[in-house]
Structure formats: structure tokens, C-alpha cells
């Protein structure tokens, strides 16, 4: 009852805030009528008119006081003030639309950039992986000298699984491509072979059908397959009776036993559609020295990542002792699973976040200095309001309200920018990157992002409220009213506002240097010498099902046929085959041991590629010594090999490698090959990788079911791609083709190039905005300072100063500020660049050319920005300048 009454009263008071002055007019009438009645009574009691009125007002307790207490009860005074402040702030901002729009746009840019980048950081680094208790998941692999994270071999995996006490489960995944039979021929699929507990370890259950049962990964349990949701939709149109159906994969029938949830994706192999039980088979799976698998594990309760790593390393050491031939140098690596998923992009995202943050700082500094200028020009208004009784807190609140209105305006605009930017940026992420970062799908405004927006807005509000506060010492309020106040008022401004510009310019320098270094790294990366000619090269992946070509002779015959068929196509200049195309990765290695040399058992790890006779010629890579293969060199001929220059230098310094022989670690007779030539260091790994020693075997002397066709074309390579694919399919619809692409395009699209390009462009964008804002800020500062010193300039000129010396005076101030800002910025940016060293390629953090060009660009821009006000100062008419005061 009372609560209801109180609520009613509160609502009435709240609504009275908005009914404005109507209530007060009515109350004035009521008081008037009250006084009239009282005066009438007093007159009746015989008082004089003056007496009657005086007594009535006295009895009322004063008209103004009554009004005041009525007003306080009529509305909620605090809210009323707030509403008044708000209306006042809006009026103030509307009165200077130039200031309002500039400030709001600056804030919107800063907030928008920060929020958009934060959304990526949140999705990639803050939100947990979409698996059960993801912090307990580890990525487990072997580790060798060349790779901190190498692959597991199946026998090692079995021993690790048996011996460890750290993990509640240890699972493997491996494999990659595959073929599916469709009515139109074989098509490539992405598939993985996994051990039985893979999905249980991740904590994922199929939405239809069942998971693999324990032991289903052992050979002889029947061919089963689990589909990803996307695979189910893509290949089977989401038909509801899919479980139990047969599907032909790699030429073999498989039974579909389950479908995974729509939200599930395994980021280390994003986009995998077919999941098959491991079923160890073939020579590699059973050989301890054949490493092709990756492991995931769930930590036992109470076991830390470090403890697990230590245990696995000791197990690896045990196995090394037990199998010295196979396991020499094979350690163990145990890392959080999240590390291998987002480890690569973490430094880039953090760099971008810092970049966006710096941009936001510049925007805030700019707006603060604009506010400072405004508060300076509103000194008199403030002084008048203070003199009329506005309390200091009331004035502070007024400024805060203005700050809040600006920030809200900028924040809303900024959110709009952020949403657009997120949309555009995710749209720009190519499919292969998206597959590796499935957590970016569905990026948008969530509570984290909104909370971040609120937090940075709050900081901005505090900043903007504090800025004019510095201008509000009580004494100064009185000074504001006195006449000559203008001269002295500038000192604090000059001390404080000017420093803000130095900060702003310094940040602009940091961003520009960062962008310059990243841009230069990207340029360097794209101009890395790959030691072959990547133009006019078309490439197509070819998958040959073992079921159709079971024996090595069959695939050699097919390879010869393919080369012959493609070579006669119009526009084809030369044709090559390779097991792994260049500019892919360092890996697929072989361990070699030289004949006739002492051997201490260490693994001489070299990149191994099986290539056809014309491959080197097709790439237009240089043959440095000896000869290339002939097409006739197959299994019926002695085994031969080409080595790259790095191998020759490393193992044959000052010697001629031609004619030397090497084999596998046991020097098994059938593994011995003779070196017949040395080729240039073809870039096998990614653009930013080192050149490894490499060996090239004749593809006919090895077994390859998956290889890449590389064709040098006379015309545009892209236009040849459809013809190549069609020709292969025409030969045998059972052969699968994958990823037809031009070599240059492939290099351009490679993850390395992509990451460098996107970070260079984004930081470049931030830097351009920072440059713009910084220069606008400097212009504002100088222009304002000139406007304040008009009288001083007038006096100087009246006393005989030349226009040129006035211009020099103003330019001098600008140069001093710019030099300070640029100098401080250059120092900081070398520090900043050291922090982002890992993102640079072929570019030093203190790259002089970048630092110099940034300094000169910013120097020139600041000169331009200060020339305009300096020129204006120089054209001051001294007579008018003096009269205007």
C-alpha cells in the first residue's frame, strides 16, 4: 500500500521533469490566488493595503522560498538537473555543429577500430575452444631438432598411450585428402583417420547415429565413417536416413555410422567432412620412423601441462634408448591445444589491437584538446555561471554531461563502424584461413564486445570530464570576469594542450613506423627469390585411388600417360609432376646416410620430393651441376637423385657431390641412390621459411598416389586450368583432381602472405587515420594559439615586426612541437618494433629507411598544417587586432 503510493509519487515526479515550466506557471497562479485571499482577509481586518500584502507574504514564508520547496517536491531534483544538463549539453553541441561532428567522427573511428579488432581478439583468444573443458586439452606430438612440433609415428603413439600416466586419454589424427565416388566421377574430400576415442576426448557426441566404439580403430572392424554436419549437408543433402547408408570412399565401401553437431569443427584440420577409424595399414603406419600423425590428449585431474610434458619427454627418452635407430633425437612436445590453434595469429591480433588502441588514444586526445579549446573560450560563460551561484560540482557535472553526450554519440557511430568492419573483414578472410579459424564464424556484437565498448567509452568520458576540470580552479572563475584575462589564460593551455599534441604526433609516428615496417616486410616477402619462375605455371592436385591402380607399375604407367596427354595440349610448353609443389612447407622429409662415411646415428633430415623428369625444367629452376633425370629412369634403372645447393654445401663443402651415394639410415641396398645433379635452392617451404637441404627422386622410382601436375603455359595459366582438369577426368573419371590454381595466385594466397598482407593493410589503415588525426590536431593547436595571440601579434607588428618574422614565430612553435613529437615517436617506435619483431620479415626493427621516411612524411604534413595559421597570423592587420580588444 505505502509502497504503491510511493511508486505513484515517484512516477509523477519523474514525469513532471518533462512537463517543464507548465507546472511552475500553475503554481505561481496558485500562490497569487493564495496571497489575494489572504490580503482580502487582512484588509477586512482593517490593515492598509501595503500592510496587508506584507503580512500575507511574511505569513507565507517568502514567495521564492515557497516556490523553491515546491519545485524540489514537484520533481526529482537530481534527475531534473541531469535532464537540464542534458538539454543544455545538446544545445551547446548543436550550437557548434563543426566541433560536434568532428569530435563524434574522431571518437567513432577510434572506438569502431578498437571494438572491431577486439571482437576478433575475443573470438580467437578470449573465448574458450568449443570443446568440453578445453583448458585440459593438450596437443601432443614428437619433436625434433628442425621442428619443435613434428609428427608422431603410430608405433610411438601406441607406446606413449600405454606408458603415460598424465592423460586420461591420448588420441591421434592423421591423413588428409581422399576421394568420393559420385555419378559424375571421383571428387576430392577432406577426411581424417582418427583413433577410437577422438570425439570422446574432445567431448563431442554425434547428433545422429553413434560414435566409434572402443577398439573400432583396429584393423578388421569394418569400414565405418562419421560425417561432419557440413559434409552431411554437402554430399547427402542432409537426408535423414543417412546413418547405415554406404558411401564409396577411395574406392572402398564405407558405412555411415553418425553425424556430428553443426557447431563442431576441429580447427587444426578445419573443414574435415569425413572421419574414419584409424585402421593401421600399409608400410608407413607400422614403421616407427614414419611420422605422419598428430596427437590430442586430455590431462588427468590434477596434472599440469608442464608435468605432462616432463613425463612424455622422459617416455620419449626411454624409447630413444630402446630404439636408437628409429628414435634418435625424437623428443616430445605437449602444449595447450589452444596454442596450436591460435598461437600463429596471437601476435598479429595483439599488434592490431594495440594499433587500434593507439588510434583511439589519438582520437581521445584530439577530442580532449578540442574540449580544452572550447572550455577556454567558454571561460567567461563559466565565470558568469559561477558568479550566479552555480556550484563547482554543478559545473563539473555539466562538463561531464557534455562528455557523455559526445561519447555516446561517438560510441554509437563507432559500433556501427565496428559491425561493418567485422563484416567486411570476415568477408575478406579466404576460405582456407576460415577453415583454420572456425571460431571466427558468426563473429559479431556479443556481451564481451559490448562490455568492452562500454569500458572504453567510460574511460573516454572520464578523460573528457577531467580535461575541462583542469581549467576550473575556483580562483580562475573570478579572473574570467575581469577584462584583461585573455593574455594570461593561455599559459595553462600552452603548457597542457601543447603536450597533448606532442603525444598525438608521437603515437602517429609509432603507427606509421609499424605500418611502414609491416608493409616493407610484406614487400620483401613477395619478392623473396623462390629460385624458379612462378609466372605462367598452372597446377592441379591429382589423387589416384589405390583400388584402381594397385601396383606401382600401374601408377607409373598412369603418370606417363598424364604427361603425354597434357604435353600435347595447345598452349602447354612443358609438364612436370611432383609429390609436393614448391612454396608449400618444409617437411615430408627423409633421413639419409652417405655411403663411405662414418655415421654416428644422427638423423640427416632433408626435404624429399618425388618429381618427374621435366619438373625442374618446367619450373625453370637452374641446374647447377651434373644432369637431370630422363623419362626412362624408372624402377628398372639404377636409383638416382638430384640434390639442392644447400645440401651440396652442407654435406659436400668444397667437394663435387656428383657420383656420391646415400641411402637410408641402415644403408639398405635397395635404398642406395647416386647423386647425378645439383639444382638451385627451390623454395619448398613457405615464403618466410629457411631453405632446407632437399633431395629430388624420380617419381617413377617411388610410389605416389597423390601428386601435383605443374604445367608451364604460353598463355595465361588460369585459362588453362579447366582444360587440365577436364583432360584428367576424360582419361579416367575415377581419378580425383583438387585445387586447380596458378602458381603466382597460390603464392599470393598462401597463409604467410595472407597474414603479412592483412596485418600490413590494417596497421596501414590505422596509421593513415592517425596521420590525419595528428595533423588535424596540430593544425587545431596552432590555429588556436594564433587566434589567442592576435593582439600580441598586432602589438609586435605595430612595433615594427616584419610579417616574415611573425610567420617565423608561429612556424617556430609548430616546428618545436612537431620535432618533439616526431623525436619521441621515433624512439618509442623502435621499442614498439622490437616487440613486434616476430611479425617482421627481412626488415630490421630500426630500419632506417622506414624511420626516415616516416619522419619526413610527418614533418612535411605538420609543416603544411602549420603554414596555414602562420600565414593567417602574418596577414593580421595590426590596427584591427588592437582595436578588437
Amino acid at each position: 500500500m505505502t509502497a504503491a503510493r510511493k511508486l505513484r509519487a515517484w512516477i509523477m515526479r519523474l514525469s513532471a521533469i518533462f512537463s517543464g515550466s507548465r507546472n511552475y506557471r500553475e503554481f505561481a497562479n496558485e500562490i497569487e490566488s493564495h496571497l489575494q485571499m489572504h490580503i482580502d482577509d487582512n484588509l477586512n481586518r482593517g490593515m492598509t493595503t501595503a500592510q496587508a500584502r506584507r503580512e500575507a507574504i511574511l505569513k507565507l514564508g517568502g514567495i521564492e522560498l515557497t516556490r523553491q520547496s515546491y519545485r524540489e517536491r514537484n520533481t526529482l531534483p537530481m534527475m531534473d538537473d541531469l535532464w537540464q544538463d542534458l538539454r543544455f549539453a545538446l544545445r551547446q553541441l548543436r550550437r557548434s555543429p563543426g566541433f560536434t561532428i568532428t569530435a563524434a567522427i574522431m571518437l567513432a573511428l577510434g572506438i569502431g577500430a578498437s571494438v572491431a579488432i577486439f571482437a576478433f581478439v575475443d573470438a580467437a583468444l578470449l573465448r574458450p575452444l568449443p570443446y568440453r573443458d578445453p583448458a585440459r586439452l593438450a596437443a601432443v606430438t614428437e619433436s625434433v631438432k628442425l621442428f619443435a612440433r613434428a609428427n608422431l609415428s603410430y608405433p610411438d603413439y601406441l607406446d606413449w598411450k600405454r606408458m603415460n600416466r598424465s592423460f586420461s586419454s591420448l588420441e591421434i589424427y592423421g591423413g588428409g585428402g581422399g576421394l568420393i565416388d559420385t555419378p559424375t566421377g571421383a571428387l576430392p574430400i577432406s577426411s581424417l583417420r582418427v583413433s577410437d576415442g577422438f570425439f570422446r576426448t574432445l567431448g563431442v557426441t554425434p547428433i545422429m547415429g553413434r560414435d566409434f566404439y572402443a577398439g573400432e580403430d583396429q584393423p578388421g572392424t569394418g569400414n565405418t565413417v562419421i560425417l561432419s554436419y557440413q559434409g552431411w549437408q554437402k554430399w547427402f543433402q542432409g537426408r535423414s536416413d543417412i546413418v547405415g547408408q554406404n558411401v564409396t570412399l577411395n574406392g572402398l565401401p564405407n558405412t555411415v555410422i553418425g553425424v556430428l553437431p553443426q557447431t563442431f569443427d576441429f580447427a587444426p584440420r578445419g573443414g574435415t567432412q569425413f572421419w574414419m577409424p584409424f585402421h593401421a595399414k600399409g608400410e608407413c603406419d607400422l614403421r616407427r620412423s614414419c611420422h605422419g600423425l598428430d596427437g590430442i590428449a586430455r590431462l588427468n585431474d590434477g596434472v599440469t601441462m608442464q608435468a605432462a610434458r616432463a613425463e612424455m619427454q622422459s617416455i620419449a627418452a626411454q624409447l630413444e634408448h630402446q630404439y636408437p635407430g628409429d628414435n634418435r633425437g625424437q623428443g616430445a612436445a605437449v602444449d595447450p591445444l589452444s596454442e596450436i590453434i591460435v598461437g600463429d595469429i596471437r601476435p598479429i591480433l595483439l599488434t592490431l589491437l594495440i594499433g587500434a588502441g593507439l588510434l583511439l588514444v589519438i582520437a581521445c586526445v584530439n577530442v580532449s584538446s578540442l574540449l580544452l579549446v572550447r572550455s577556454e573560450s567558454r571561460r567567461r560563460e563559466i565565470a558568469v555561471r559561477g558568479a550566479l551561484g552555480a556550484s563547482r560540482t554543478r559545473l563539473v557535472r555539466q562538463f561531464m554531461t557534455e562528455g557523455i553526450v559526445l561519447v555516446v554519440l561517438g560510441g554509437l557511430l563507432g559500433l556501427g563502424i565496428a559491425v561493418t568492419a567485422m563484416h567486411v573483414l570476415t568477408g575478406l578472410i579466404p576460405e582456407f584461413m576460415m577453415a583454420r579459424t572456425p571460431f571466427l564464424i558468426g563473429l559479431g556484437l556479443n556481451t564481451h564486445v559490448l562490455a568492452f565498448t562500454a569500458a572504453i567509452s567510460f574511460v573516454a568520458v572520464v578523460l573528457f570530464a577531467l580535461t575541462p576540470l583542469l581549467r576550473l580552479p575556483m580562483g580562475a572563475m573570478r579572473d574570467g570576469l575581469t577584462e584583461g584575462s585573455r593574455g594570461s589564460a593561455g599559459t595553462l593551455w600552452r603548457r597542457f594542450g601543447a603536450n597533448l599534441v606532442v603525444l598525438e604526433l608521437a603515437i602517429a609516428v609509432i603507427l606509421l613506423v609499424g605500418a611502414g615496417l609491416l608493409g616493407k616486410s610484406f614487400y620483401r616477402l613477395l619478392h623473396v627469390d623462390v629460385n624458379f619462375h612462378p609466372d605462367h605455371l598452372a597446377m592441379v592436385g591429382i589423387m589416384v585411388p589405390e583400388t584402381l591402380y594397385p601396383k606401382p607399375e600401374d601408377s607409373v604407367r598412369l603418370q606417363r600417360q598424364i604427361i603425354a596427354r597434357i604435353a600435347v595440349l595447345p598452349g602447354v610448353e612443358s609438364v612436370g609432376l611432383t609429390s609436393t609443389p614448391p612454396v608449400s612447407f618444409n617437411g615430408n622429409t627423409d633421413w639419409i646416410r652417405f655411403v663411405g662415411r662414418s655415421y654416428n646415428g644422427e638423423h640427416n633430415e632433408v626435404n624429399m620430393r618425388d618429381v618427374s623428369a621435366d619438373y625442374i625444367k618446367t619450373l625453370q629452376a637452374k641446374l647447377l651441376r651434373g644432369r637431370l633425370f630422363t623419362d626412362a629412369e624408372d624402377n628398372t634403372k639404377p636409383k638416382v637423385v638430384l640434390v639442392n645447393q644447400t645440401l651440396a654445401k652442407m654435406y659436400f663443402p668444397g667437394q663435387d657431390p656428383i657420383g656420391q651415394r646415400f641411402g637410408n639410415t641402415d644403408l639398405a641396398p635397395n635404398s642406395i641412390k647416386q647423386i647425378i645433379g645439383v639444382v638451385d635452392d627451390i623454395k619448398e617451404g613457405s615464403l618466410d621459411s629457411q631453405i632446407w637441404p632437399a633431395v629430388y627422386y624420380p617419381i617413377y622410382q617411388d610410389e605416389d598416389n597423390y601428386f601435383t601436375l605443374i604445367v608451364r603455359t604460353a598463355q595465361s595459366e588460369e585459362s588453362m586450368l579447366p582444360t587440365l582438369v577436364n583432360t584428367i577426368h576424360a582419361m579416367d573419371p575415377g581419378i580425383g583432381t583438387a585445387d586447380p590454381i596458378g602458381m603466382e595466385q597460390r603464392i599470393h594466397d598462401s597463409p604467410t602472405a595472407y597474414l603479412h598482407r592483412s596485418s600490413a593493410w590494417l596497421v596501414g589503415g590505422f596509421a593513415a587515420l592517425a596521420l590525419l588525426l595528428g595533423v588535424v590536431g596540430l593544425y587545431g593547436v596552432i590555429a588556436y594559439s594564433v587566434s589567442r595571440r592576435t593582439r600580441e601579434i598586432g602589438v609586435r607588428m605595430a612595433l615594427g615586426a616584419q610579417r616574415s618574422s611573425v610567420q617565423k614565430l608561429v612556424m617556430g612553435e609548430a616546428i618545436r612541437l612537431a620535432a618533439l613529437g616526431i623525436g619521441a615517436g621515433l624512439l618509442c617506435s623502435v621499442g614498439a618494433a622490437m616487440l613486434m619483431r616476430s611479425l617482421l620479415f627481412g626488415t630490421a626493427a630500426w630500419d632506417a629507411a622506414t624511420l626516415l621516411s616516416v619522419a619526413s612524411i610527418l614533418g612535411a604534413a605538420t609543416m603544411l598544417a602549420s603554414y596555414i595559421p602562420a600565414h593567417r597570423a602574418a596577414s593580421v592587420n595590426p590596427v584591427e587586432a588592437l582595436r578588437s580588444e
Partner: protein
Amino acid sequence: MGERADVWQGTLALMVLKTIELMGPQHGYGIARRIEQTSGNLLSLNYGTLYPALLRLEQEGSIASEWGISENNRKAKFYRLTRAGRKQLEKEAHNWQQTTAILDRFLSPAEEQA
């Protein structure tokens, strides 16, 4: 001081409600005069303090107001009791009587013992 003001406000509200109940619709000046008279001029009231009290009662829905013409032909705002106000008056009058009765026992205990 704040507490005393609260007590004063509470009692003032009760006086206003009772006065309106007895007099029927009445303007602020009339109510003020009547309260003074009823108190036997023991209460000397600043008439101005009445208006926030009236406003509060109106906001709480105990009274309603409209403009009318006074006995000597002046435009005045008249306040009348609403149904909720009548209930509140009943309840608060009862509460007040109880309170004073209890306080009475404390303040004049001699009679009790005798």
C-alpha cells in the same frame, strides 16, 4: 533535525487530510487557516510549507485538485479527498491514536501505579 521534519511532515499530512474531510473541497489558504484555528492558534504555521505537503499528497493520490471560485469570488485551486485518501486518513488516524495512547502511558506512569 531530519527526523523531526519527517514527523512534522507526517502529522501535517494527517492534519491536511482531516481538515479536507471535515470541510469538503478547500483551497490551500483555507486549509492553512483552518489548521491554525483548529489548533487553537497553538500552531503557527508558515503557510508556504503547506504547498509541498499538498503536492506530495496529490502525487501519492490521496487528494486531487481543480481550479474553482472561492467564497469571495477569487480563482483558487481546490483540493478534495480521493477514495484512496479517505482510506489513508482512516488508517493513519487510527495509527496516530494508538501511538499517542501508548506514549501517554509512558509519559504519565504515576496514574498507572496509583
